[in-house]
């Protein structure tokens, strides 16, 4: 085929792919069209890949087949095998690989250019794009790996870690990278400088993410996701490819907005998430004792079961502890039992309950709990006052009245579920230890609150047995 026509047809396919990507992303923002949106985006990717395979720059298919085969197998196995609860980690890993790929593509192109005969220095714009690809992509790669390790709760990464003079080290590394960047741009093509940038960016990726607490990882992943989009867009500038630029900048922009939305839901600023290492357990100590002392009423399965005997309206508030205990199936059974006894059961879903957005929805959906039982905060808050029993399972911060009353607390201003207005509140958790925000919870000391200390799953299983025996 006429090479000009061929190139044009490929570009036309890229245009189609770009439009499909946009439609796909648009679809993903509405619950009803989300599945179709994802499929559209996948179709877009397929179109782009097939078009690329037809390019005259592709001379041999051997390597391509090998690479795609290996990647597909690994990706598919990971995606199909993973537990629902481990999804955030997996997304982090995938994201890191995307960033890494951008780095390598830009590097390969730079090597190709540096070996051209006759040697012509590449245009400035290309050199800049190469540097950006390398920098952003590498930070994404290592940052995502650290995020993975934290979410997977690998021992070494469990706690927020910070080196002495941490921000100073980061600043030093950043200055170093910028200097190397100037070198690479002013003396192109410069393969050595490129790898040096990637090296420093690797360290930077680790030191940037490692001090951030595991619970903030969803925000970090959203941000790194935005970065991987930007890295892809930069790579698009390097190899002058429209679809890379469109798809990359789509993801870059939407990731940034998503990051902001997530920060807002937690009532924190992005700067605070990234640099304001949260003082785990601050203000604990004496405060805690004061609040709890002598006011905690604890109960066992049988006592709690009695409460449910007469309850007509029950609301269950799931939290991070439900995910840790993997109690969703037991909760499903509890729901069935209560409904069989004639009670109405609803779930109150706080927007930041758990450790990733929509965490509770996914968990409860896994246990096949009907979607219309899950109520959003604004929707269900007015009805707590008419509720007989509220069962809080492994939630803490999202039901902490300090958010309303103590303007100095780290969750001040965060809207919470007003469970304290119910007739009786039962809280299932293993101890009085605090949740993610590291602060005590006066709810536990309230008159209408009963503590049921146990692992979430065991507690519910026992409770189910007890109710059946009533």
């Amino acid at each position, binding site marked *: 085929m006429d090479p*000009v026509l061929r190139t044009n047809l490929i570009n036309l396919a890229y245009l189609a792919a770009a439009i499909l990507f946009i439609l796909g*992303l648009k679809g*993903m*923002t509405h*619950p009803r069209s*989300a599945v179709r949106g*994802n*499929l559209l*985006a*996948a179709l*877009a*990717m397929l179109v782009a*890949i097939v078009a690329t*395979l037809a390019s005259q720059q*592709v001379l*041999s298919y051997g*390597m*391509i087949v090998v*690479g795609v085969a290996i*990647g597909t197998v*690994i*990706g598919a196995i*990971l995606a199909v095998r993973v537990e629902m609860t481990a999804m955030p980690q997996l*997304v982090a890993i*995938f994201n890191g*690989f995307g960033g890494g790929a951008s780095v390598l*593509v830009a590097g*390969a192109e730079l*090597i190709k250019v540096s070996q051209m005969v006759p040697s012509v220095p590449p245009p400035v*714009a*290309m050199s800049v794009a190469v540097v950006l690809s390398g920098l952003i992509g590498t930070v994404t790669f290592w940052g995502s790996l650290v995020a993975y390790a934290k979410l997977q709760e690998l021992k070494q990464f469990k706690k927020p870690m910070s080196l002495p003079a941490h921000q100073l080290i980061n600043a030093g590394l950043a200055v170093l990278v910028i200097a190397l960047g100037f070198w690479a741009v002013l003396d192109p093509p410069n393969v050595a400088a490129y790898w040096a940038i990637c090296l420093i960016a690797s360290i930077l990726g680790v030191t940037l993410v490692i001090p951030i607490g595991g619970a903030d990882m969803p925000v970090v992943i959203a941000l790194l*996701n935005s970065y991987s*989009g930007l*890295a*892809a*867009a930069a790579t698009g500038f390097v*190899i*002058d*490819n429209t679809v*890379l*630029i*469109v*798809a990359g*900048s*789509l*993801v*870059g*922009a*939407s990731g940034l*907005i*998503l990051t902001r*939305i*997530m920060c807002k839901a937690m009532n924190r600023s992005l700067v605070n998430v990234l640099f304001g290492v949260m003082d785990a357990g601050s203000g604990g100590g004496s405060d805690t004792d004061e609040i709890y002392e002598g006011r905690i009423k604890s109960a066992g399965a049988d006592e709690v079961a009695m409460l449910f005997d007469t309850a007509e309206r029950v609301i269950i508030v799931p939290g991070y502890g439900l995910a840790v205990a993997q109690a969703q199936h037991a909760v499903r059974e509890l729901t069935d039992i209560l409904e069989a006894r004639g009670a109405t059961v609803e779930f109150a879903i706080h927007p930041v309950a758990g450790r*990733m*957005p*929509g965490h509770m*929805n996914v968990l409860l*959906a896994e246990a*096949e709990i009907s*979607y219309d039982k899950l109520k959003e905060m604004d929707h269900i808050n007015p009805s707590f006052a008419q509720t007989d029993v509220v069962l809080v399972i492994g939630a803490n911060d999202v039901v902490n009245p300090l958010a309303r009353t103590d303007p100095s607390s780290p969750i001040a201003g965060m809207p919470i579920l007003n469970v304290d207005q119910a007739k009786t509140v039962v809280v299932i958790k293993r101890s009085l230890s605090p949740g993610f925000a590291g602060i005590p919870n006066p709810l536990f000391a309230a008159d209408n609150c009963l503590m049921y200390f146990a692992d979430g799953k065991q507690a519910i299983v026992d409770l189910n047995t007890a109710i059946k025996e009533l």
Partner: protein
Amino acid sequence: MIELLHQQVFLAQTMADVAAKVSPLGLLIAGLTIFALAVFVGFEIITKIPPTLHTPLMSGSNAISGITIVGAILASGAEETTMAAILGLAALIMATINVVGGFLVTNRMLAMFKKKRK
């Protein structure tokens, strides 16, 4: 090759226009135009997304960022120097994992919501 070029260009285009379009700065401008527009599209689309969809969206858009697979294919199919080819293969494997895994896992997540909906 030059004839090829000549023959394809419609004459109403001045040669300076043509040269500008394919000059490095011209390519950069064309790319930036597309970049700017796509950024606006991205910003505007993600405005009122419900929290439930944050995680699937994150995972889905993460799969989209695997578009760099296009670059990886070009790099690994080019029969270039060994070094570039090895980098290309590594890039291709990583990008494929991102794309295939990303879309599959997003689909799994979304399927869970959907099943219950009916």
